């Protein structure tokens, strides 16, 4: 809308950015920040700004991992359940098998990699739709976590050095998760937007057949994104355990749908072929800021969920409309 005020063609680049999905969403995020700075208690403090990162870290990691998965036209419903399984295994390896924490952590990530490979091989070798494969592993991973703990076992009393990762601050202000999360985001950003592998993922999302004809090893690339998704989900579980100080079978319940919401809100097409890491980050923070802002202005927390749902529909409907208008304009021009 605001682009209308600009002279029509002198700022094509500005126009393109502002009118893009990410641009509109970023404006919305700014609007949220302004509103909550006015009506929220202490919203404007740096402490709060950094606390928001802490709240968003675990779901954010899942959202980052899901972005390339969805860009290839796939989906991974199993990441939340894998967090539960990883948390329980991590706790068991440390408490019952007396592994040192770093070793337990490495073993947990290895299990995450195996879980990702299980999804990937069913998807690429047997050509089962990702939605179905990960629906099955969604039950399987959560069920294994419940079975291993008999539904009640809870791992606690982790050493302080480990809890620092989820609860501590660097220099007294920066949540310990922030650098870790930033590193993962940067890694995914580089992979998707600065490498040939990343470009290949978009091509696969547009048309797997076309990508194959273009010489892209489709199966290997698809395997890579699900493998990474498994590792990142396990890593998110370790952060979760450190953040909450306990590991139970229910860790991460429902996180998969929240992460998918952030990704789709951020402009990644559920059909694949389109999306950016920046969009996912903006989508994620639009959701987390809404939750935290409502909390600090004594608004009902549930309103955040309702608004996210409405926002999701509006964002996609608006996106459809803009695309339809644009294609009409170009077809007229030609």
């Amino acid at each position, binding site marked *: 809308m605001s682009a209308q005020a600009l002279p029509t063609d002198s700022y094509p680049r500005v126009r393109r950015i502002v009118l893009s999905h990410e641009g509109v969403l970023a404006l919305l995020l700014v609007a949220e920040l302004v509103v909550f700075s006015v009506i929220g208690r202490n919203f404007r403090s740096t402490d709060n700004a950094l606390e928001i990162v802490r709240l968003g870290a675990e779901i954010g990691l899942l959202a980052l991992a899901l972005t390339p998965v969805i860009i290839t036209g796939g*989906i991974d*419903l199993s990441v939340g359940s894998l967090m539960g399984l990883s948390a329980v295994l991590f706790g068991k390896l440390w408490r019952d098998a007396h592994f040192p924490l770093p070793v337990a952590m490495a073993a947990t990530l290895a299990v995450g990699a195996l879980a990702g490979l299980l999804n990937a091989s*069913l998807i690429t070798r*047997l*050509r*089962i*739709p990702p*939605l*179905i*494969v990960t*629906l*099955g*592993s*969604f*039950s*399987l*991973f*959560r*069920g*294994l976590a*419940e*079975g291993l*703990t*008999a*539904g009640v076992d809870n791992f606690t009393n982790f050493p302080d050095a480990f809890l620092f990762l989820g609860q501590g601050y660097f220099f007294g202000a920066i949540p310990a998760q922030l650098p870790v999360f930033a590193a993962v985001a940067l890694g995914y950003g580089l992979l998707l937007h600065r490498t040939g592998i990343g470009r290949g993922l978009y091509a696969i999302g547009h048309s797997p057949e076309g990508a194959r004809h273009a010489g892209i090893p489709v199966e290997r690339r698809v395997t890579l994104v699900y493998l990474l998704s498994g590792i990142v989900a396990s890593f998110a579980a370790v952060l979760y355990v450190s953040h909450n100080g306990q590991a139970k079978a229910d860790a991460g319940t429902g996180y998969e*749908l929240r992460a*998918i*919401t952030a990704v*789709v809100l951020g402009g990644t097409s*559920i*059909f694949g072929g389109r999306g950016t890491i920046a969009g996912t980050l903006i989508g994620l923070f639009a959701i987390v800021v809404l939750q935290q802002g409502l909390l600090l202005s004594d608004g*009902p927390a*549930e*309103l*955040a*969920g*309702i608004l*996210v*749902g*409405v926002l*999701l*529909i509006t964002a*996609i*409907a608006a996106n*459809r409309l803009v695309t339809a208008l644009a294609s009409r304009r170009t077809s007229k021009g030609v």
Partner: protein
Amino acid sequence: MMRKHLREISVAGALLFLLLILLVRSPKFFDAANLRAVIVSDAPVIVAAIGMTLVILARQIDISIGSQFSICGMVAGLLAKQGVPTPVVALATLGTGALFGAINGALVAGLRIPSIVATLATMVTWREAMRWISEGQAVQNLPESFLWLGMSRPAGQALIVLSAFALLLLFAWGLRALPAGRAVYAVGSDAEAARLAGIRPPLVVFGVFVLMGVLTALSALLTAIQFRNVLPGEGAGLELKVIAACVVGGVAISGGRGTLPGALAGVLFLGTIGPALPFLGTQAYWEKALQGAIILIAVASDAINLRRRRDVGASLAH
């Protein structure tokens, strides 16, 4: 016949095999009271699975039914508590479900939003709206006239099970015999071809979502009359449970392929595993893991079969 319905037959066979093991190892499973409890708890899932089968056959998906179920159950409970006559309660509940279904249908068929995203959004919206309004409080002490529809417990149980199976038969017949039923298959197989054949795909898609809403509401109603209290989180996770049952029963997520008897076999098989575990000397906590493994094995065997058949076809073609 055997080949065409391989999946339905193999799932039914697996169910029979499970029952056979139970018969040998632990005949106590077949005590009338236990058997009745298992079937009664499956009945609402069967009703929801009918709707989900229609939705998946039309190449759509609805992951908002858990939230719809919760709200419809609460609507039924609140109205019943106000002393509203039971038939009116039932109508209002089904109407609520139809409204939710129509909203999903309008988003998918009208605004052309992919169904997984549209119903993800409505799922979140309804769930949070529910939490806000109910503040997590259950509706307690439902009146006697509402519980089991005012009938004795065995009569109410019989009614629940019979109505679920009657509905299943009705819809199974409708899918085969009615033009509307065949239109669902046609749209799910190839929407463009269906359109050229004179079917209006958006209308069919809208219709299956409305039916899904009504059937979810009925499922919630059949659950609400069984217990003294209605909990606001009752339906959480129902969507994936029902989708899993359909998939195990051979309803293809790519649309246009699958049958209601197959979905029924899926519901009964997954619904029997859980209650059977304690009788077989295993902890009930492993239920979900086993269900997940069954889903993966079912779809994997399907895929391997399909590939083998394709290979045979290819060698014939050469």
